[in-house]
C-alpha cells in the first residue's frame, strides 16, 4: 500500500519525500484539529464531582 503510494508519487526521491512530509503534516493537523477532539468527546470522562 505505502509502497504503491511511493511509486505513484512523481519526481525524484527528495520531491517524493517532500510531498510525503507535507501530506503527513496535513493529516496530523486534521487529526489534532477535528478528529481527536471528536473521538475524545465520544469517550467517557472520569467523573470529578460527588453526587448522590
Amino acid at each position, binding site marked *: *500500500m*505505502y*509502497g*504503491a503510494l511511493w*511509486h505513484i508519487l512523481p519526481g525524484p526521491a527528495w520531491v517524493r519525500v517532500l510531498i510525503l512530509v507535507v501530506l503527513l503534516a496535513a493529516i*496530523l493537523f486534521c*487529526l*489534532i484539529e477535528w478528529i*481527536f*477532539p471528536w*473521538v*475524545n468527546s465520544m469517550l467517557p*470522562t*472520569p*467523573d*470529578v*464531582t*460527588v*453526587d*448522590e
Partner: protein
Amino acid sequence: MTDEPATTRAAKLRTRKRDRRRVTVVGVVGELLITAGVLVFLFLGWQLWLNDLIVGDQQNQVAAGLSNSWTSGNVSLNHEQVITDYGDPVVMKAPAEAQAFAVMYVPRFGADYRRTISEGISTTRVLNKNGIGHYGTTQMPGAIGNFAVAAHRTTYGAPFSKIAELRVGDKIYVQTKDAFYTYVFRNRETVSPQGVGVLDPVPQFRDVDPTARLLTMTSCNPKFSAAERMIAYSVLESWQPVSAGPPAAIANLVSAKG
C-alpha cells in the same frame, strides 16, 4: 552466472522488481494495522499530554483576561507581607450557570497557574469547557461554610492534575470582582463518588453549624479513574478588597497581561 544470456538476466530482474511491487491482501492489512496502531498512540499522546498543554494554556489566558477585566490591568504592587484585617469578607452573589466569576491561583500547581471558576458542575457545559466548576449548592468564596469546586485531574486541560501534590500550608488564592481571598491547604481525603458529605458547610458533619470559611476541591482518584474522589480542604486565612491590590505572592501574575 557469466554464461547466462543477457536476456534471461533482464527477465529475472524484471520479475524480482514486479514481486517487490506486488500488493498483497496480507500486506495491505498489515500496513493498515500498523497505521491504526500509530494513530492510537498519536491519540493517546494528544489526549494525555499535548491537548492538556494547549487547553491549559487557553484556560490560563481566559483567566488572565477575566482578572484584567476587574483590575483594568492596574494593580498596586504591594510586596510587603502584611496581612491587614478588613473585617468580614465580602461575599458575592451566585452568578448564572456556566458564567466564570472567579480566578484561582495555586502556586503549587505552577508559577503561572491561574484558572477561572465557573458556576455549576455540568461536565459538558462547565468542566469540559471552562475548567473549574463551583457546586451551586455550596457557598461562595469568603463565606462562612464551604466553597466547593470540582475540576478534571486528567484531560480537558486538567486544572487539578497536581491536586495530590498540595502540601499543608500551601496557599490557594481566589480572586473575584470584589476581592482576593487567601486560603491555606489543610488536608486531603478520598471518598466514594457518592460522598456528598464533603460538600456540607462543615464537611462530613451535616448538622453542625459552620464557623470556618472553607474551600473544598474535588477531583477524580486515582488518576484516569472514576473509582473514588480526591478531596482537598483549605481554610480561609485572610482576604483583601481588590482596591488593596493582590496578595504579594501573586502580584506579578495578576498584573501580567498573560
